[in-house]
């Protein structure tokens, strides 16, 4: 299994656990326990039960007729937008909250960009009666206002991160600092396949339910479990990893990760990590990272708060380096137009993160018989203000 994590927490040249000693006991506790706990029968039963009854899984794999006509291929939408709370993020938070409980933790912290992971964390904390603090960049609090209020209604404390560009990277810094200062009673629910080992592997496993379902649903609908393409947007890369997971070993399946180009890859305002990044170390792992020659992290930019991150998960860095997956990038403008296009073609208003994946359909060349699965990671309710401000509809 050449795309899974190795003994020391690496995917090829990427991954690891580059953490200060202050975080070592917390991360080590997770590393030593996550597989044993998540492989328990009782854990799995509760996880599956909550995914089914609380999240609403399995999510449909919807054959998008009009979209298929438009792009001359068989396009299926994996409807993660129909998950409770409106995005795939909750698959992971359900898994991690059960893990946190098994480890006896009473407090939960999280970082969030678009607010979807924050809402998903606040939701599972309410469900389990655990204390919840979410760090969110101050800029993101402004551009994802409805999600801030959702978290507050759910009883979470939302703490603005005021350093840097006041976005996801800065929220992650603050969450890590909080964890350093509260090492014993607190679990940090990271929202993507980033962070020190074992987070990338753990989050990937929790999200892998997406591709597990896709396989079964494709057999039902086409008689064949393997598509020709799987397309997903990549911020940290959790929805993409979930959609790729069970196809990693099948070289026939083309895996396409879609990053945010912001105002354009060469504009200086971008978050297209595979295009602009070099190997580096941030938030506890070695991965591709947008940085200066001197190793300072470059502030990313994207209209989409969930893709506005200067790195990607180490597994994606590995998929990029080994060319197992291809990465393309989409500008703000292309994404917004694709969001409107999907709304009018299929009656689904996507999250702006997801709209980047949809825009990628324009950049790919399909054969008429190709089966394309597009992971519809989230819905656009949280983004109405951004759509309105953009205004071209």
């Amino acid at each position: 299994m050449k795309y899974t994590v190795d003994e020391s927490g690496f995917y090829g040249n990427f991954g690891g656990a580059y953490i200060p000693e202050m975080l070592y006991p917390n991360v080590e506790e997770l590393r030593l326990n996550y597989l044993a706990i998540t492989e328990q029968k009782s854990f799995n039963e509760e996880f599956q039960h909550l995914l089914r009854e609380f999240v609403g899984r399995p999510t449909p794999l919807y054959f998008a007729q009009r979209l298929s006509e438009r792009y001359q291929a068989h396009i299926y939408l994996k409807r993660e937008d129909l998950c409770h709370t409106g995005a795939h993020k909750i698959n992971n938070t359900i898994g991690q909250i059960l893990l946190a409980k098994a480890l006896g933790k009473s407090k939960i912290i999280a970082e969030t960009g678009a607010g979807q992971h924050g809402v998903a964390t606040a939701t599972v904390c309410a469900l389990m009666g655990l204390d919840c603090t979410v760090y969110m960049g101050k800029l993101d609090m402004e551009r994802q206002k409805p999600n801030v209020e959702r978290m507050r209604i759910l009883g979470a404390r939302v703490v603005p991160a005021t350093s840097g560009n006041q976005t996801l990277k800065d929220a992650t810094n603050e969450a890590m600092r909080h964890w350093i200062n509260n090492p014993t009673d607190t679990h940090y629910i990271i929202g993507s396949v980033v962070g020190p080992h074992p987070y990338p592997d753990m989050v990937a496993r929790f999200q892998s339910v997406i591709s597990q379902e896709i396989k079964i649903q494709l057999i039902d609908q086409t008689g064949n479990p393997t598509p020709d393409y799987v397309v997903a947007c990549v911020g940290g890369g959790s929805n993409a990893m979930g959609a790729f997971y069970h196809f990693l070993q099948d070289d026939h399946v083309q895996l396409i990760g879609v990053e945010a180009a912001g105002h354009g890859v060469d504009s200086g305002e971008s978050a297209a990590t595979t295009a602009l990044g070099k190997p580096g170390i941030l938030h506890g792992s070695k991965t591709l990272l947008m940085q200066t020659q001197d190793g300072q992290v470059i502030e990313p930019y994207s209209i989409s708060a969930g893709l506005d991150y200067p790195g990607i998960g180490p597994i994606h860095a590995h998929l990029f380096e080994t060319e197992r997956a291809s990465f393309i990038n989409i500008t703000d403008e292309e994404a917004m137009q694709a969001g409107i296009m999907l709304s009018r073609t299929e009656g689904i208003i996507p999250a702006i993160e997801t709209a980047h994946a949809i825009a990628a359909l324009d950049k790919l060349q399909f054969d008429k018989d190709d089966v394309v699965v597009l992971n519809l990671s989230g819905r656009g309710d949280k983004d109405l203000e951004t759509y309105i401000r953009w205004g071209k509809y």
Partner: protein
Amino acid sequence: MKNRLTELFEKKKKDVLAVYYTAGYPSLDDTEVIGKTLVKAGTDIIEIGIPFSDPIADGPIIQASNKVALDNGMQVSLLLEQVKALRSQVSAPIVLMGYLNPVYQYGIHKFLIDAKAAGVDGLILPDLPAKEYEDNFKATCESLDLSVIFLLTPTTSLERRNKVDQLSTGFIYAVSASSTTGNSKSFDENQLHYFETLKTQKWRNPVLIGFGISNHETFSQACQYSAGAIVGSAFIKALEQSKDIKQTIQTFVKVLRGNL
């Protein structure tokens, strides 16, 4: 020539004072004058921070100094030049402290060689994992006689404490609390208990206590349990409020040592 940390700890087993400051703060060219004045005022070890954009182990004060230093234009190559200039004027050990990524981009091997050539005696890289150290740093550091100092905290297990002692050369950095950098006014009972365990353990290396050393009381308390202490945030704060850096440093060190 002998490693200056080794030399220092051969001669001095108590009340060792190490002071941290961020290179390029408050002004780009202050690195030299701060180091020189610190030594003159009675500092034993100069610990110079390599600024980083995302210092996750640091509290607000050191975060802010990192940002100012980067905005001032500090870079690793310039920092090493400044250290070289400082080295020609002081004989105290100089330790560089920083996050791994800037070192990694500079090139690990090149960094170690250039640091040694600039007169650096030791390195503290908080996010450097033991295995990465053993694979990519250890041989070069040993051949250059460059110390590498690892951290331990109140939650570090006994087994790992021993490993930290095995890996470290020069001294061990005992973090006073489970926290980011920043100053507390005093130590609580749990911390004193932890210090007691540090004192009773048999170490290969001398131990310095850092984080939360902010005044004479905390400095002398820490010194009762260890070879000395490291001051960071409190010093940066003093610099931040200073109108006359030299005067501020003289007074700061005196107060800390209880000579005022």
